[in-house]
């Protein structure tokens, strides 16, 4: 029972990481109906920036927000340079562009930082604390705490501020928003920046666990896909809930199903994706889609 509880807590911790990246995916999906295949790679690059800062002696708690700001600016830059020219192109084109972006960012990171895995510092110690009968590491608690704060901030930004309202309006009714004086294109850029920053959080959180290298996010993005799909790809709340469910499920499956073990956890994510898409394509919190002629 105790071990079971521990597995659940560490599942929630990885769920928080998946949820952040899934939320980034949802933000961009809401802005332009696109799944950004480069989200994980962008987060990885941001994590390398944080690593470089910390490596040069900058304190972790300064490097963290600085990285988020850089990631935010980078996201806006990417939208302006790469995405904007194909904004109105068919979805096929857009997906291929984001894939190209993923390949490009991966290659650039490999070029600049090399493929040797590096250990990334964590501000939380690996010591455990007894919490309701389960031994939980401070590191897991820290990840849960940081993820919660970030998710809350995004929620407040989207639901309680004018800029959040404008962003949602631009995403849902671009024409009407434009008539009301909203700079729709810049709102999309803002969405990309925000997504990039949120994704960076997941990268920084996962790096101490996985070791930092250019292919670090390749598996995490699959879990994030699973989380976003499970939650209904347009719902921010769904991304969070989906992330937690995926995190716990994958962790429990890895621990208690001998066939899955450590190396087939990714296959569990694939199974979740396919099951949800076939049985309930709108996910837990999504709205049914209507097709018009």
């Amino acid at each position: 029972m105790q071990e079971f509880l521990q597995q659940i807590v560490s599942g929630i911790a990885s769920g928080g990481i998946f949820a952040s990246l899934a939320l980034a995916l949802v933000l961009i999906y809401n802005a332009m109906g696109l799944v950004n295949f480069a989200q994980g790679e962008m987060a990885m690059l941001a994590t390398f920036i944080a690593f470089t800062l910390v490596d040069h002696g900058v304190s972790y708690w300064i490097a963290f927000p600085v990285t988020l700001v850089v990631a935010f600016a980078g996201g806006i830059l990417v939208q302006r340079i790469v995405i904007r020219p194909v904004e109105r192109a068919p979805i096929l084109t857009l997906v291929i562009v984001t894939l190209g972006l993923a390949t490009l960012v991966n290659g650039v990171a490999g070029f600049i930082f090399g493929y040797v895995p590096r250990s990334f510092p964590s501000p939380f110690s690996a010591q455990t604390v007894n919490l309701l009968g389960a031994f939980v590491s401070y590191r897991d608690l820290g990840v849960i705490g940081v993820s919660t704060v970030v998710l809350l901030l995004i929620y407040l930004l989207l639901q309680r501020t004018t800029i959040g309202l404008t962003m949602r309006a631009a995403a849902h009714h671009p024409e009407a928003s434009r008539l009301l004086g909203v700079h729709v294109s810049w709102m999309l850029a803002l969405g990309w920046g925000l997504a990039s920053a949120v994704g960076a959080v997941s990268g920084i959180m996962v790096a101490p666990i996985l070791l930092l290298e250019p292919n670090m996010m390749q598996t995490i993005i699959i879990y994030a896909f699973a989380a976003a799909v499970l939650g209904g790809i347009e719902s921010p709340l769904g991304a969070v809930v989906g992330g937690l469910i995926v995190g716990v499920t994958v962790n429990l499956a890895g621990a208690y199903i001998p066939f899955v073990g450590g190396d087939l956890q990714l296959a569990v994510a694939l199974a979740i994706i396919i099951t949800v898409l076939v049985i309930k394509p709108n996910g837990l919190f999504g709205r049914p889609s209507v097709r018009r002629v």
Partner: protein
Amino acid sequence: MLQRIRTAPPRYWLVVVVVLFFAGFPTVISSFQAGQWALALILAIAIMGLNILVGYSGQLSLGHGAFMAFGAYASAILAHRYKMDYLVTIPIAGLLTGMVGFLFGVPALRLSALYLALATFALAVVMPSLIKRPVGLTGGVQGISLPPVVVPQLAKDGFTMLTGSAMTSDQWVYYVTFAYALVLFWLAWNLVRHRAGRAMRAIRDGEVAAAASGINISGYKTLAFGISALYAGIAGSLLGLATGYISPDTFPVSLSIQLLVGAVVGGLASIPGPLLGGIFAYFLPIESNQWVPTQTWIPSQIVATVVKAGPAVTYGVVLILLMIFAPNGIVGLATAGYNRLRRRLRGAADRESGHIPPDPQTV
């Protein structure tokens, strides 16, 4: 007959020239290079499969490397465990992969283009770890080593008679691949010009309108998936023949990306596109590593950068730039150029004769 040959459109002559070129030139290049071109043709076959799916039926798959893996392992297991002749296993592997693709196409029907891209991408990422699991069947991480390629006596004799030199196994592999490529490209060409191809394109361009015209949407979509997987399966099987060894690492996600790059570069929804795309996707990473350092005029720092960055950066940049500036790839650019040229020339002819030339046929 003569009449038909005389009135054949110029592109038929182009096809004849290209086929003769690919049939003849392994005799003048080294055996090693023939092996390289065999790999390029294998990629071209897989890309043709992807092209049928993405270009003609409008369903995006980012996981065709997984289908290649299935075909390769089907062949390898049949040849290794059941001692079948490898050449016999190639069509079997193709059909098996085709069936798997057909089955995969059924749930894919319910997915929008975006979700399908997502699911197939996940499949491509998961495939290597899935392969590792049944160790007894797939050899796990170690993979499967295949028996060395034996050139049949008949092919040996024929080759010696024609060229005067002995046929190497690389050249034999090349000609096997070439034969498959020829047949599969010809089949694809027939497919897209006839009923099924028209139906697929109608679905791609407007699903609701196609359904209203009485086209069996789910039937043709799954059919496209099956055919596409069949091509990938045969390509995977041929890859096993060409490399003599397969392991989970032979089929990383980047293979699927490489196929997509090839399809996009060559030109989606075109028949020559995948051939050009295959050549590009295969030789770009090799040449950028070998050709660039030999060029003295390029500053050494840039050379070092290109070699160190590997193909990923180039692939990424090429994908993005092509999608922005030339979404129809090389074939699209060539066709546009040719049409412009012809319009010019035709315009000149009009002024002389006063004839209005017939419209060029669509399709």
